[in-house]
Structure formats: structure tokens, C-alpha cells
């Protein structure tokens, strides 16, 4: 067998389509960099697209495995899809699924599947360091949390409060349903004695909140989640920008980072994709990271996928490399990445809004450095878990 077939799934339909497109840009860069060959074998890349729903992701995965007969799938993009593919991977023999960008904690934390690998960090990890920064450096003793009411924000809030409450911070939680576009009554509920707003919202929801908050003349400092300050928000003009400048957040990626690896990655990206974003998105970064991990493991086993991919999966589990942010990546026992997380701040970079790294937490594990059992005993992140007294 001289061909290695790699299938991929991202979202090119529906609301997440821009992120999905960007993911394929950097994947293509990764394959082009090795000229579609690894260990002398040709890589055949078959792309599929879902609409960010688990059912469709699963249907696509089945097609890739059963009809196109791929050896490896890279994907998917969103959390619920990730869990669905993890379950599916368990039913497969001799095939491997490597995550694309999905970030639900449970995909690897609880009931992991032996042939599902994730080289990107996830939602809880991404908040490492932010709680501490908010309490110690910003002096915020009470934050108003404005977050979307579903699993990914739960994970992020969990990561934040894990540190923040320990230090003595108080949190007033204001949950909004996913896709809320009118935040006016939520804004009215922000307590007058709050020191900052912790905004765990993505894309449109974040844009809506910030614009409406600006509209009533709101002026608390904003602390963002990992996908709050994404390109859609940064590149959109408008009144929300007034609030965004100086907003701090944490995550695996920052637009401005002095690391030479990153500078080169961004330069390549801009050259290869003049129509792309100003700087690769978080999805592009995650897909790229996962892809290079696959390529590296393939290289190590000389493209040998025999014996139900035993050698390959073994290699994957032990791969260690540097991601484009210049951070070291390795896997834990559940095949989940341990890597560095950055504190970021939004700056006005010559008329363009960008995120800039100003702090770094190294080797963040999925259990935030805790013992796995103790961490699991904290319970799944949810609306009410954790809670720091005295909220409200």
C-alpha cells in the first residue's frame, strides 16, 4: 500500500462555515509543506463537510471510513460532533480519528476511546491563568459572568472559576441561551458593584453583547473567553471596539506573539492565503496542530499502518512536538494534549485590532494540574458547578 488516505471533516455549511474554511486552509498548508508525501507514501486527502451537528458529522465519518476507505480522519470542529465521533471511533478497528478543533472536555476526560486523539487543548485548559490574572492583577473581586448556556462555556467558566474562587473572588452568573441577540435585560442585571464583566460568548452573541453594552454607555472592563475575541469580532467595525480594546482573555493562541515559529507560520499563511484572515483563526490553528501530529507520527512509523494501525497509534500517543505558537505538545493517558496556554490582551495594532500574548502558563493538563480522580470528583462543569460563594 503506497497511499495513505486521510479524510477530514470540518464545517463548511451553516454558521461556523468561516471557521471551517480557515481550518482547511492551514490543513492544506500542512500537506503542501510535505508535498503530500510522508515516508515515501502519497497522501490522498478526502475532504468532507458537516454542518456542526453530530448526526451529519457521523454520516460523513461513516462515508469516509466505509465508502472512501480512509485510514485516518481529522476532525471535527465542534464539541458535540467531537463526542459523536469519539463514540463512533470506539466501534472501529484499525482506523484512527484525530480531533480537528472540537473542544468539549468529556471527549477525552470521561470514557475516552482508544483510537481518538486530540492534540489541541480544550475549553477548560484554555482558561488557565485568567482567573488569577483577574483577581491579582486586575483587582477584580467580583465579576459579572455573561455566558452562553451550553457545555463549551460551562467548561470555560469551570476553568476560570477553578482559580478565581480559590483566590476569593465572587461571581454573579448571568446565563443567556445560545444565539441570544438581545442582551438588554441581561445588561440591566449586571450588579452595580461588579468590578468586571466576564464574557464567555462567541461570534455573534459576543458582538451583540458588546454593541448593546456600549449603547447604554457601559464601562466595566471586559474579560473574555477563548473564542470571544475571534477574528469576526476583531475585524468588524463598530462601537463594540471601544470596549474591546484592552480586553483580556486566555487561550491557546494569540495574533501577536514574538515566537519565531509563530511569525513564520503567520507569514506563510498570509502568503498562501491572501484572501484569508489577517491571522489564522483558532480553528485553523487547531486543525493544523492535529495534522502535523499525524504527519509526524506517520513519519516515525515509516507510514506503516499494518496490524490495525497498532504501531501508528502507539507513535501518535507518544508524539511530542512544538505547535505554531511555539508551545510544546504531548498527550496524557487519555490521548489529550498537554500544552501551553497564553494570556492575551486586545491591542490596537496600527488601526487593526489584534490579540497580543502577555503571559503564559506552561504544560496545562486537562485536569488543571490536579490528580485525575480528584478532578473528576469535582463533577462535570455545569450551570451550577462550580459556584463561588457569595454569588449574588
Amino acid at each position, binding site marked *: 500500500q503506497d497511499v495513505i488516505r486521510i479524510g477530514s471533516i470540518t464545517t463548511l455549511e451553516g454558521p461556523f462555515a*468561516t471557521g471551517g474554511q480557515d481550518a482547511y486552509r492551514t490543513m492544506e498548508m500542512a500537506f503542501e509543506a510535505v508535498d503530500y508525501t510522508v515516508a515515501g507514501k502519497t497522501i490522498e486527502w478526502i475532504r468532507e463537510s458537516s454542518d456542526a451537528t453530530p448526526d451529519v458529522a457521523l454520516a460523513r465519518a461513516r462515508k469516509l471510513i466505509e465508502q472512501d476507505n480512509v485510514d485516518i480522519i481529522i476532525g471535527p470542529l465542534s464539541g458535540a460532533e467531537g463526542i459523536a465521533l469519539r463514540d463512533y471511533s470506539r466501534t472501529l478497528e484499525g482506523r484512527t480519528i484525530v480531533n480537528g478543533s472540537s473542544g468539549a472536555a468529556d471527549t477525552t476526560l470521561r470514557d475516552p476511546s482508544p483510537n481518538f486523539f486530540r492534540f489541541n487543548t480544550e475549553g477548560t485548559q484554555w482558561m488557565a491563568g485568567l482567573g488569577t490574572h483577574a483577581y491579582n492583577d486586575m483587582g477584580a473581586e467580583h465579576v459579572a459572568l455573561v455566558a452562553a*448556556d451550553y457545555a463549551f462555556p460551562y467548561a470555560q467558566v469551570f476553568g476560570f472559576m477553578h482559580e478565581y474562587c480559590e483566590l476569593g473572588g465572587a461571581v454573579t452568573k448571568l446565563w443567556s*441561551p445560545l444565539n*441570544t441577540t*438581545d442582551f*438588554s435585560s*441581561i445588561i440591566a442585571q449586571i450588579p452595580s458593584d461588579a468590578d468586571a464583566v466576564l464574557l464567555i460568548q462567541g461570534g455573534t452573541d459576543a458582538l451583540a453583547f458588546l454593541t448593546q453594552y456600549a449603547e447604554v454607555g457601559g464601562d466595566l472592563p471586559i474579560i473574555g473567553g477563548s473564542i470571544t475575541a475571534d477574528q469576526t469580532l476583531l475585524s468588524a467595525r463598530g462601537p463594540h471596539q471601544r470596549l474591546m480594546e484592552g480586553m483580556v482573555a486566555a487561550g491557546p493562541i494569540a495574533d501577536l506573539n514574538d515566537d519565531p515559529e509563530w511569525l513564520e507560520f503567520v507569514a506563510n499563511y498570509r502568503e498562501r492565503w491572501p484572501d484569508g484572515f489577517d491571522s489564522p483563526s483558532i480553528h485553523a490553528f487547531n486543525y493544523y496542530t492535529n495534522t502535523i501530529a499525524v504527519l509526524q507520527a506517520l513519519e516515525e512509523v515509516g507510514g506503516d499502518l499494518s496490524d490495525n494501525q497498532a504501531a501508528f497509534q502507539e507513535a501518535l500517543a507518544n508524539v511530542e512536538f512544538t505547535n505554531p505558537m511555539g508551545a510544546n505538545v504531548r498527550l496524557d493517558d487519555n490521548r489529550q494534549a498537554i500544552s501551553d496556554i497564553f494570556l492575551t490582551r486586545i491591542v490596537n495594532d496600527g488601526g487593526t485590532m489584534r490579540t497580543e500574548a502577555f503571559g503564559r502558563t506552561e504544560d496545562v493538563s486537562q485536569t488543571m494540574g490536579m490528580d485525575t480522580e480528584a478532578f473528576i470528583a469535582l463533577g462535570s462543569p455545569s450551570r451550577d458547578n462550580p459556584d463561588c460563594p457569595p454569588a449574588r
Partner: protein
Amino acid sequence: MSLQFILTVTLNGLTLAALYFIVASGFSLIFGLMRTVNMAHGALYMVGAYIGFAVFDPIYGSAWYSYAWLIAIVAGIAAVAILGVVMQVVFLGWMQGQELRQALVTIGLSIIIADQLLANFGGSPFQFFAPDMLFGPVQVPGVGRYPVFRLFQVGLAVAVGVGLWLLLNKTRLGIMVRAGVDDRQMLAACGVNVPLVAATVFALGAALAGLGGVIGATAQPMALGVDARFLLISLVVVIVGGMGSIGGTALGAILIGLAEQWGQVFFPTYSVILTFVIMAAVLAIRPQGLMGRKIA
């Protein structure tokens, strides 16, 4: 809970209702007058916003920026009105009376439109910026700082409502279209040029979707998926209020707007569902909606 808070949330509900009314009125008009369930209403809303934005964006960056928003409104309305006429003349007119088939055609169209918008404009969210005059807070007695634009929405909604009411109840056009719903052939036998009337109504209803698109995308960010949202809102508002009744649409919008805002306060988790609960309750008691005519 302070009085100020109660007033604020209530005002929020009313101003949101104004937006819902503007968007739903076009749907209600087309449904009420032609019995066409325009499942592409959300798509038309989106077209209005996207076309408006395509015009807005370059102008906003130019010296004419203060007119950008008004021009966007005009562009959005015009583009969608034309699209509406095309829909009626090419696809729907000749199957008038086949309500289900029409609904299906509009579903097909909305799928295509939404996908083509994604192809041509990309999926990034955007938002219009109202002229400075309409942006920022003003003092409202009992409430405190309040965004002007939301108050402006209310004014606009009232204007649209009054205009529509006059059109429907005080003009011969209104009589014609209502008669056309009941019996198109008989209306033609009364000497009325039915296709022309139908195209006019569709243009008008679509234009309202276009207006709603620009206003809506000024109040809230615009992104893909919004079509389904506003289609649903239109459906619920119109079902609750009573189909084909302007007053009913207004009442429905107010109920839903208030429910959404107060729902966010009392049970944030289930606030989205509250609207559907209201709808089910209304239907169980009055299947024709609060102000609808009894369905024979």
C-alpha cells in the same frame, strides 16, 4: 427588584417587540392577504440586510458616511421588493391557492438564497451602525440611560403599523387583496387585475422584510442562521396574534417581546421556550390567535 429594573426590562420587551413587529408585519401581510405562507421570509430579511450592508460598507468608509445607513435602508428595501415580485411572478402566482405547494416552493427558495448569501458574502457576522443621532444613550424618566435606537424602533413600528392598517382597511387595494384570498377567480370576474394586485402585495410584504433586515441588523448582529430565527419569530408572533390582523401582529409581538425579556430575567435557561409555551397556550384556547378571525 427595583422599580427602575422593572421599568427597564419592560421597556426592553416593548422595544424588542417593535423590531419583531416590523419583521413579522411583512409576513403577516403576505399571509393575511394572499394565504401564502412565505417560508422564505427569513431569507428575504437576510437578503435585505446583506444587500444593505454591501451598499453601506463602502459608503460608511467614505465622506458620505452619515448617509450610509439611510441609503442602506433604501437599497435593502428595493432589492428585496424586487426579489419578492420575482418570486410571486415566476414561482408563486401560477400556483395560487395551492397553499402547501407554495410553502414548499418558498422553503426551496430560502434554502438556495441562504446558501448563495453564504457563498457570496461569507459567513462573518456584521452590524449596521445607525447615524450618530440614533446611537448612544438618552435619559428616559424612571429608567435612566437608554439606547435611542431602541426608542426609534418603536416609532418606526408604529408608523409601519398605522400605514398598513390604513392600507388594508381604508383603501380599495386592501379590499381587493382580501377578496382575492377568498376567491381569486371571482375577484377576476369582478374585473380586478389579480396578478398585478398579487405582485403589489408581495412587493410590499417583501419590502417590509427588507426594511426589517436593515433595522434588525442595526439592533442585533447579522449572521447566517438569522433567517430561521426571524422566520420563526414571525410565525410565532403571527400565530399568537392572529393571522392577517395588523392589531394581532402587534399584540403578538408585544407578548413575545415581553416574554423574552422577562423570561431572561426569571428563568434564563428556558426563556427561549417561553415563547413557544405561550403559543401553545394561546392555541389551545383560541386556535385562531388572539385577534384572528375564527377559522370556519
